[in-house]
């Protein structure tokens, strides 16, 4: 189809150690030229990207698309628009839909729906349930699901509680080398909890979720991984003690990886004092010490991935008493801004390091094709302006739901657009 010329961008591709200022020519979805002073061809669309960074396309490996089953919260169409607006060329979607993603027909349904959105601009990688209907009793037909293109297995929303089931899942998944993504929560310790347990939950009179509930499950799962193999990935890590366990496991050479959400490296439990239900999520906002540990873990490489746990809930569902509000916030459209503001500007991560956590590492964990900014390669790009200052405004969100604690926050670093599958989206 078309020819696109991106002018004057800073091109960063950490996998090649590339960081250069140049123009980038794209034809029929492939990169055909990278150098300074490229001339626009006759029919080519030209974008002036002075001040912007062009990077390999970002993946958000933890997204709740809500379809099928919860279309009042979000649909595949609305959330893929949000992904594009947030600078993501691909999302991995969690299986806690209704019905759950536990057989190949749902996988096909989601893939087909996604192809109709924005001309298939945003790739969708379904994550299938570990257990049938996410009930924790019997594993799904993992081999067949793998064949149908799922990228990982998770019962997210709930943990795989039963140790024997977790053992079976880790062993069985070895046959097709897919990771098991655990929502790490020892449920017998968290029953009824709505926020981090500690002094703040005490003075707010809210039931607590202790940090050890996360760490205990991680500890158990690491021992299972040592014993029976498999690849283990911890979703939405939130605690320092959990992080320390993963650091130790990695030091021992275990196939253990993890992700952190932007809210867990930005906000701490004091936010709950507002009783704003957009501060209620699973795992909960933790202490400042935990927030600092998340940043440390990103810096030293213990934390591989930044993923949002994008969890849309309708306005009415969140506009209730704190105890009764559902857990979760949207994240696709604030992830880049929060990461640059909280990590890059304060010098915790360099831009190339941040880019690795949005593209190189999640692609490696999910075993997705590696993308490079190189002549002859497919054009799969995320474009963002790292210096643009902006104020988060939920009315500008493309997501069907607006549940975020970041409304009104001033951020630096804003997504500009994406290029993928021979299509372009520029804001």
């Amino acid at each position: 189809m078309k020819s696109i010329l991106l002018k004057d961008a800073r091109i960063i591709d950490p996998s090649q150690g590339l960081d250069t200022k140049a123009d980038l020519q794209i034809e029929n979805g492939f990169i055909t030229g990278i150098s300074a002073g490229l001339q626009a061809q006759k029919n080519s669309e030209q974008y002036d990207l002075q001040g912007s960074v062009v990077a390999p396309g970002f993946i958000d490996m933890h997204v709740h698309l809500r379809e099928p089953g919860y279309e009042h919260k979000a649909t595949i169409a609305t959330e893929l628009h949000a992904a594009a607006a947030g600078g993501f060329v691909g999302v991995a979607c969690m299986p806690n839909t209704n019905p759950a993603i536990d057989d190949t027909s749902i996988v096909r349904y989601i893939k087909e729906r996604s192809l109709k959105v924005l001309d298939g601009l945003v790739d969708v990688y379904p994550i299938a349930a570990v257990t049938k209907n996410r009930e924790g009793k019997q594993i799904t037909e993992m081999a067949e699901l793998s064949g149908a293109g799922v990228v990982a297995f998770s019962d997210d929303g709930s943990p795989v509680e039963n140790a024997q089931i977790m053992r079976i899942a880790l062993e069985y998944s070895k046959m097709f080398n897919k990771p098991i993504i655990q929502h790490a929560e020892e449920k017998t310790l968290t029953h009824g909890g709505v926020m981090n347990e500690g002094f703040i939950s005490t003075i707010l009179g809210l039931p607590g979720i202790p940090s050890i509930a996360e760490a205990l499950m991680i500890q158990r799962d690491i021992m299972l991984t040592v014993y029976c193999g498999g690849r283990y990935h911890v979703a939405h890590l939130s605690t320092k003690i959990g992080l320390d366990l993963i650091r130790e496991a990695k030091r021992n050479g275990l196939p253990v990886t993890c992700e952190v959400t932007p809210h867990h490296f930005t906000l701490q439990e004091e936010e709950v004092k507002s009783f704003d239900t957009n501060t209620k999520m699973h795992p909960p906002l933790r202490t400042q010490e935990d927030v600092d540990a998340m940043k440390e873990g990103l810096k030293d490489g213990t934390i591989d991935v930044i993923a949002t746990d994008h969890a849309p809930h309708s306005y009415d569902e969140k506009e209730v008493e704190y105890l009764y509000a559902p857990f979760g916030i949207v994240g696709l459209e604030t992830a880049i801004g929060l990461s640059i503001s909280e990590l890059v500007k304060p010098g915790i991560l360099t831009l190339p390091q941040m880019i690795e956590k949005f593209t190189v590492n999640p692609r490696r964990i999910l075993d997705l094709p590696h993308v490079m900014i190189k002549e002859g390669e497919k054009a799969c790009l995320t474009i963002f302006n790292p210096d643009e200052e902006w104020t988060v405004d939920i009315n500008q969100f493309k997501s069907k739901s607006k549940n975020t604690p970041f409304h009104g926050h001033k951020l630096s670093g804003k997504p500009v657009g994406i290029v993928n599958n021979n299509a372009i989206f520029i804001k």
Partner: protein
Amino acid sequence: MSLTSRHLLGLQGVPRDDIIKILDSAVSFKEVLDRPIKKVPTLQGKTIVNLFFESSTRTRISFELAQRRLSADIVNFAASTSSLSKGETFKDTARNIEAMKIDMVVVRHQSAGAPHFLSRIVEANVINAGDGRHEHPTQALLDIFTLREKFGMLEGKHVCIVGDILHSRVALSNIYGLLAMGARVSVCGPATMIPRGIEKLGIEVYYNIDDVLPQVDALNVLRIQLERQEGGLFPSLREYHQYFGITRERLEKADRPVTILHPGPINRDVELSADVADSEHSVILQQVLNGVAIRMAVLYLLSQVK
């Protein structure tokens, strides 16, 4: 002469001067309650809604009586519903009631923060009559009022709150109010019922009632909820009574008289033995009368805040 806030959501952060204003005003209203005609026109023409999402006969009756004594018009709204059930949401209920042009809302709810939420969505003054395990400010004010009557002043007096601190809304409000008034505050209960970090509020924590008893001027004995035993936080009422029950025998070991408060209703011979509940050092019935006076004072003072 008016309070610094137009709502009473809790005692956390309420300035000492505001607490004193409420206590002093309650003294005058208590005099009214001693008159042959126990009614004043203070809130004539004002409409107050008692919005109870959790049943609490005592608190509701106390508020209702206070409102009647002040000549307010009253609407009682009791709902066992929460947004978990299919009924109307809390917000819709609140909006509907507001549409009827009401001036004040008294709210009791299972969820901490529900009064705070309400204060954001209605124009009326909001009074927290107990939110989850968070706060119950009028209960604490009446406890403090009762103690001030007894002791004259609270500076340096040691009040120990005994029982299930974790699930108590009375404990936190009492801690804030008593500390603001210069009292020494401690809590005592089974370790499973002492919430984490509570000592950071500037109070002492005891697990053995006999350790703290010799030092205290008053005990505020909380009601033990039977469902906590079912939740496994303590093994039996028998053992609870043995280790934390306030008995005459225990009290006799203290070298000074210990004033006994209880927010009611009492489980006799569980947290409090019958002879202690009815003893000369028990101020439990004064608390009930003072509750009406305190609530009159709170309603009156909040109605004055612009």
